[in-house]
C-alpha cells in the first residue's frame, strides 16, 4: 500500500480532511484508502481549537458515483493480486468516515459538549493521544447523545469507544467497571440494551 503519511512517528497522525460538517457530526475523507480509524475511536478536526469526534460510521465507494466498482478477481489467486493488477483502484475508490461531535478544545481546555460551531471544511483530522482519550473516558456523558441517535450502530460505537479507551489506557484499572456503571445510569430503564452493550466490552 502506498503510505502517504510522512510523519508516521508523530503522536497525532493526520488521517484526512473534513469534507462535510454540521452541528452534530463531520465527514472526513481519508488520504489513504481503507485508512479510516476503527469504529469508536476518538479523532479531532482542526489545528486550532480542535473539535473532537467519535468515529461512528465509515464508507468506501467509488469517487465517481456514476461508475460503480465491478468484480475483477475472477481467475486470480488472491485478493492482493486484484489490487496489484489494478493500481488505478487507489484513485478511483475513496474511504470516508463520519464522526459524531463529542467535544471541543478552547484555550487548551477540553470541554465535553457540543462546540458553538462545527469544524471548517478542509480541516485536518488527526488521531488523539492518551490524555485526550482519558478526558472523554472519564465523563462519558456524551454517550447519551450517541445512544439517543438510535442508529443501528449506536450501541456498537459506544462499546467500541470503551474498548479502545481501556486498551489505550491499561494503567487505568477501574476504567471498564466505571464506564459500565456510567452506562447503567444512562440506560437505567432499558436493561436489555445495557446488557447488549456490556457484552461487547469483554475483559481482556
Amino acid at each position, binding site marked *: 500500500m502506498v503510505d502517504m503519511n510522512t510523519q508516521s512517528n508523530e503522536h497525532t497522525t493526520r488521517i484526512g480532511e473534513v469534507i462535510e460538517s454540521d452541528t452534530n457530526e463531520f465527514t472526513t475523507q481519508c488520504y489513504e484508502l481503507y485508512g479510516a480509524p476503527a469504529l469508536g475511536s476518538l479523532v479531532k478536526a482542526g489545528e486550532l481549537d480542535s473539535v473532537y469526534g467519535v468515529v461512528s460510521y465509515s464508507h468506501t465507494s467509488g469517487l465517481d458515483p456514476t461508475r460503480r466498482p465491478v468484480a475483477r478477481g475472477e481467475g486470480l489467486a488472491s485478493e492482493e493480486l486484484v489490487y496489484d493488477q489494478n493500481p488505478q483502484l487507489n484513485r478511483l475508490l475513496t474511504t470516508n468516515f463520519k464522526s459524531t461531535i463529542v467535544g471541543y478544545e478552547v484555550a487548551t481546555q477540553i470541554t465535553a459538549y457540543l462546540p458553538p460551531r462545527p469544524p471548517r471544511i478542509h480541516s485536518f483530522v488527526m488521531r488523539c493521544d492518551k490524555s485526550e482519550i482519558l478526558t472523554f473516558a472519564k465523563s462519558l456523558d456524551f454517550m447519551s447523545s450517541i445512544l439517543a441517535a438510535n442508529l443501528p450502530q449506536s450501541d456498537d460505537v459506544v462499546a467500541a469507544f470503551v474498548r479502545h479507551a481501556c486498551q489505550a489506557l491499561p494503567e487505568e484499572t477501574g476504567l471498564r467497571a466505571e464506564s459500565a456503571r456510567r452506562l447503567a445510569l444512562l440506560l437505567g430503564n432499558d436493561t436489555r440494551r445495557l*446488557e447488549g452493550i456490556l*457484552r461487547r466490552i469483554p475483559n481482556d
Partner: protein
Amino acid sequence: MTDLNRLGLVVAGSLGDGVKVRLNSTSSVEGVKVGSNVVIQGQESRFFGVVTDIALESSDPSLQFNLPDVSDKFIRDTLSGTSAYGAITVEPMLTIGIDQQADSTGPMPAKTIPAHFSEVMEASEEDINSVFGSEADGGFWIGSPLDMEAKLCLNLDEMVKRSNGVFGKSGTGKTFLTRLLLIGILQSGKASNLIFDMHNEYGWKGTSESNHDVKGLKQLFSSKVSVFSMDSESAERRGFVPDHVVSFGYSDIAPEDIQLLRETLDLTSIAADAAYSLEAHFGPGRWFNSFINLSSEATNELASEINVNSSALAALRRRLERLTRFDFVSQDRVEDSSEMILQRLNAGQHVVLEFGKHGNNPTAYMLVANILTRRIYNRYQRQKELAMGDKLAEPPNLVITIEEAHRFLSSSMSGQTIFGTIAREMRKYNVTLLVVDQRPSDIDEEVMSQIGTKVSCLLDSGRDIDSVLSGVSGNRKLRGVLARLESRQQALIFGHSVPMPVVVRTRDYGSAQSYSDLGDVSVSNGDSKKALEDLFGPS
C-alpha cells in the same frame, strides 16, 4: 466524628408514609436492619429516625420480567446499585437543630421531613447520647440500639410518673427486662417497689435461659430489699430464709376479692355478687367466717333471708371452701401482713413477695395480690390526704409489679379491681403499676392507654401487637419492627421514658461485670470473701 456509614440519599416519601431513601451503590440492602436508627442531614435540621421498611427497586420496570444474564459477574456488578438498587423507608421521629448550641430544648418530635437528596447515615454513639440522654444525666442504661455499642438510657423520672408495662411472648426475656427496670428504680431511689413475684424470679435468685442461676434483688441490694414469702418450705429449698412469711385470716377476705376471682373460681356473677349481700348481713370482716361454716340447710335459710338465689349461694360457699385450703389462710388472723409490708415501704425498703408453690395457682396469686394491694392503697390514700400538700409528709412513691396482668386488668375486671383503679388514677396517690404480661390484647383498652412506657419483646399475635401499639403515632410502621424482634434479648421501647420508639438489645445480666455494674456499691462488710465467690461464680 469518624466516617459514619453513609447509607444513601432521600429521594421520595411523605410524612405519613415515611421517607424513601435510595441506598448508595456501595451499601448493601442486606446490611440494613429494620428497627435500626439513622440520622438524616436535612437542609435546616438534623433528623433522627428508625428504619421501618426495606425494598428492592429498579429503574427498569421490566427488569424482573427480562432478567439479564447475572451469571456474568461483570453484568451483575454493573447493575447492582445502578439499575437495581435497594431502598429503605425511614420514619423521621425527631429533629435536632443543626446548631446544637443554639438548640437548648433538645430533640423535638419531627413535624416535617427532610428535603430531597438529604444524606442518610447510620446513627452514631454521640447521636444516641444526645437523643436519649446518658447515665450522667440521670438516665438508666437499659441496653444498646441494634448493632451498636452505645448505651441507651431511659428517663427514670418520666417512667415513675406513670404506670408502665413489659410485654412479650413467654420466653422472650420479660423477666430479665423487668428485673432491670426494677433495679433502675431501686438505684435511683425515686420509688419503692412492691413486687408480687409469681415464679420466684426476683427475690433471692432466678434462672437464665441457659438454666444458670442469676442473682435476684436481695442478693444485689441486701440492705434495701426484704423478701417475704407465702411458702417458707420452697424458700428453704432454694437456699435462703425469707425475712417474713405472710399469712391471712378469714377477716382479710373482702367481696371485692371474690369479684376478682370470679373466673378462676368459676362463679356466676350472681354468686359473686352475693358476697356483698353477705357482708351487708354479717358485717365486714366477719362475713366470711360466719358464712363458710354454715350447713346446707342454714345456707338455704340464709338465701331467702338475704334475698339471694339459694343455688347460687350454695355454689358460692363451695367455691369459697377452696380458699380455706390454702395453707396461708387461717381462720384467725395471725398478723397484719399488709401493715408489715407498709412499714417496710415507709422506711424506704423494697419488698418482694415470693409465692413459692402457690405461684402456679392463679387463684392464690390474685387473691393475695388483691388483698394486700387494697389495704396498702387505702393507707396510701389516707396518708396522702392527711399530708394535704405537704410533700414531706406524703408516702413515698410506690411501684407495684404484677405478673399475668391480664387477669387483673381485663375489660371485665378492670372496673372492679384495685389494680384497674390504680392504673386509671395515674399516681394520684403516689402508687403506680408495673404490669408484666404475655397477653396484652386481654388488657382493657383504657388501662393500656394509661400505661406510660411500654417495653415490648417479641409478640406474634396480631391482636397483641395491635393492643400494645394502639394510640402510638406511626404504629403501622412499628408493627413491622415489633413482629421482627429477635426472640431473646431484644425489645421495642416506646412511651414517655424515651423520646422516640427504639429497638434495644437488653444489656447483659448474669455476668460478674453486670453484677458489679448494677449492684449496691456497698457490699456487706466482712463478707468480702463470700462476695467474691458470688461475683465470680458461674456466669
